[in-house]
């Protein structure tokens, strides 16, 4: 015989306006095992909570049901109330009579009847709840940051500066990411590498940060507080501790390939420095373009280096696997540009003077392929008329990306103004749909670009770009005047969208984190938990989670770092105890549950020939329970018996 108390919240008129509170409170009080039922205008308020506590003590309750708003709102609140009154916190259940009853119905009689059913269900459930306590597990107080862009660097620095060790894993030969490629940043027109460079060096010099370049996460096992990570590092042919960037190796290297840092607008050697400010400041040997590693055929770089007595180059280097133990992981994998060649109406890849915004960005950069002079890729001439097409392949659910990349309005304004600065007698045109300039100083910046740059903004889209006598004919529309327009341009710049970096989806699988419909890392809650993935202990920063600009990225990176630090600050952590449990006697040892578990929490004990649950690994989804043919598995506080009781409670 249980002693249950039922508490019904009016929530002002939110519930009381549609549900007859008196009727359901009376009905609840007559339910078997219910000792007391009471109501209050706002149960979440101090007096409301006091009412519950008083009743628990006065009636010696051993379980409570709170009929109020969704458990997403106040489940924790009322568990704490129960605990404060001396109950086990898992002896509290919520009956959601607001979001799923009073707010969605208007017939008082029907809503009252339904609220009563919902409360009955919760009573049946709470009566079968076990006494549980959170599980305590130890924490490895180190962090792993995946991705060495501005988000990863910021997050790594924040964690490291708090005294914890950080592994910063970067896929390419240098940290710096996309931000290193940019010329100036909006809205301040800071030189991008000038503000990023010092941070890169700071990360390199920080004794708590270990940078693993040319590396990728291969395997992640374990769980929050105790991850075991395997990182595969490609062969490091050039020893970064010895290399002094003398560039003798580059001079002799015979292999030339397009330089990805310059968006393939220039060439680099097979042995190269990713860019002038690269960190670690060392050369990289690109296996794919090297003329002969296996078998060694060329070796000119090594000879040149050895001649100087440096011996930094080891052509026999092998890939290495680092096994790391960390407590928290921050994923900061960033973005890449949508493939503009897929937008066939604009002729990217066919007409050399149709370029992407990132290519134009490189051209604006003083260290870029043209040393900051804007030139037409086709003939090197300085363009006079430039057309910028915003939303190229964006906000197009039927034809390309459905979403808005958020930064293009800003950088396009900047591009148009910088073009005007560099080519004063030139003319820039911008096709736009809306100008989205929300952000500190952003609207002012766009207006300034428009005014100073003499840019002609045309509200509409472009249908087609084609070549005509060494000009690009741009056919578009200005919807404000209702006229179709045609511009003979020298260069067309496509503001293509941001897409998740290649391999994000695979990494998400490895991390057991999920991605959204566009392939970006999914946050645990879009409003309230934007820095965390749904998997405990995996945090998110930067454009790998959603398109965002640099300030937002940096803010999110620091936020994710603080979340990680929160976790690393204590030697142990608590987890929800509502995990799977196995009754050994009932287990037939069939092993069906083992592959059903997505978290490898189930395994076969070969000696006893039964399955075992590793509680620390169990996330509590209950998939194994539904798969168990002998009923040996159950999910604590959501057992089959409880669900059956709830089904019955609802039907009568």
């Amino acid at each position, binding site marked *: 015989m249980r002693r249950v108390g039922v508490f019904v919240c009016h929530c002002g008129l939110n519930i009381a306006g549609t549900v007859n509170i008196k009727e359901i409170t009376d009905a609840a009080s007559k339910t078997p095992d219910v000792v007391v039922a009471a109501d209050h205008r706002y149960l979440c308020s101090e007096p409301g909570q006091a009412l519950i506590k008083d009743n628990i003590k006065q009636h010696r309750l051993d379980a409570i049901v709170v009929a109020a708003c969704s458990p997403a709102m106040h489940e924790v609140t009322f568990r704490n109330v129960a605990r404060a009154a001396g109950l086990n916190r898992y002896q509290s259940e919520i009956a959601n009579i607001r979001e799923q009853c009073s707010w969605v119905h208007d017939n008082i009689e029907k809503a009252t009847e339904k609220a009563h059913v919902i409360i009955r269900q919760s009573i049946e459930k709470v009566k079968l709840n076990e006494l549980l306590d959170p599980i305590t597990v130890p924490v490895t107080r180190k962090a792993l940051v995946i991705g060495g862009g501005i988000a990863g660097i910021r997050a790594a620095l924040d964690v490291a500066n708090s005294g914890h060790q950080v592994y910063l894993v970067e896929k390419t030969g240098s940290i710096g990411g996309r931000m290193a490629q940019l010329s100036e940043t909006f809205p301040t027109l800071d030189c991008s590498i000038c503000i990023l460079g010092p941070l890169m060096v700071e990360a390199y010099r920080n004794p708590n940060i270990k940078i693993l370049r040319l590396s990728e996460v291969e395997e992640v096992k374990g769980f929050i507080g105790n991850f075991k990570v395997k990182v595969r590092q490609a062969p490091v042919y050039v020893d970064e501790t010895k290399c002094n960037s003398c560039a003798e190796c580059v001079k002799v290297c015979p292999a030339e390939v397009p330089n990805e840092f310059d968006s393939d607008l220039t060439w680099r050697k097979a042995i190269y420095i990713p860019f002038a400010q690269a960190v670690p400041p060392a050369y990289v040997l690109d296996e794919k373009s090297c003329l002969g590693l296996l078998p060694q055929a060329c070796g000119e770089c090594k000879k040149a280096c050895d001649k100087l007595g440096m011996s930094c180059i080891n052509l026999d280097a092998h890939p290495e696997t680092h096994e790391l133990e960390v407590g928290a992981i921050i994923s900061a994998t960033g973005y890449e540009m949508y493939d503009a060649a897929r937008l066939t*109406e604009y002729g990217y890849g066919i007409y050399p003077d149709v370029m992407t915004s990132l290519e134009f960005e490189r051209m604006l950069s003083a260290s870029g392929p043209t040393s900051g002079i804007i030139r037409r890729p086709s003939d090197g001439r300085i363009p006079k008329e430039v057309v910028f097409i915003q*939303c190229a392949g964006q*906000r*197009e*659910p*039927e*034809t*390309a990306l459905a979403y808005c990349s958020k930064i293009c309005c800003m950088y396009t304004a900047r591009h148009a103004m910088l073009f005007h600065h560099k080519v004063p007698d030139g003319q820039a045109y911008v096709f736009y*749909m809306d100008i989205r300039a929300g952000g500190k100083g952003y609207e002012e910046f766009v207006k300034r670009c428009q005014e100073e740059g003499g840019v002609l903004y045309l*509200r*509409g*889209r*472009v*249908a*087609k770009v084609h070549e005509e006598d060494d000009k690009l004919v741009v*056919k*578009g*529309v*200005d*919807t404000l005047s*209702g*006229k*179709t327009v045609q511009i003979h341009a020298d260069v067309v710049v496509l503001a293509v969208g941001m897409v998740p970096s290649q391999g994000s989806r695979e990494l998400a699988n490895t991390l057991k984190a999920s991605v959204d419909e566009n392939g970006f890392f999914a946050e645990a809650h879009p409003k309230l938990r934007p820095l965390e993935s749904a998997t405990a202990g995996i945090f998110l920063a930067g454009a790998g989670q959603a398109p965002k600009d640099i300030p937002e990225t940096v803010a999110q990176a620091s936020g994710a770092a603080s979340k990680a630090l929160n976790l690393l600050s204590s030697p142990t952590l608590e987890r929800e105890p509502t995990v799977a449990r196995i009754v050994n006697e009932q287990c037939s040892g069939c092993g069906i549950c083992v592959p059903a578990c997505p978290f490898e929490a189930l395994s076969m004990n070969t000696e006893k020939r039964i399955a075992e649950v590793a509680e620390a690994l169990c996330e509590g989804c209950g998939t194994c329970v539904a798969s168990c043919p002998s009923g040996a598995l159950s999910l604590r506080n959501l057992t089959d018996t409880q669900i059956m009781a709830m089904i019955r409670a609802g039907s009568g």
Partner: protein
Amino acid sequence: MAHQISAATVTSPLLRKVERISGQNLSLCYQCGKCSATCPLAPQMDLMPHLVIRYLQLGLEQVFDAKSYWLCATCFSCETQCPRGLDVSKVCEALRTIKLRNDLRDLKIEKPSPEMPQQGLVSAFRKLSPY
């Protein structure tokens, strides 16, 4: 006189009728103008294709006064380019259909050339006459 906008605007009988006959959801249109930019006949139209949609969104009967929807050659350029998957040619067809079903106007053809393929004549009758 200002066009009166009210709650009835968004459910105007005209809008509903056009949506039903064309099978298109006009609320998809966000007025980017790509249909007008791509329409080969737009330069000859008195109301740009995107404005045809806009007039309908606002329930403006004056859309029928335009000659645009008679000029639509059903080339589907707009359909191919629309980022939201709308087919403006179907909307034009719906406007023609409404007009033709209401007043049985006859297609006036200057003596067609003997070399005109049948498909041209049949298409014209199907598109521009009530039969």
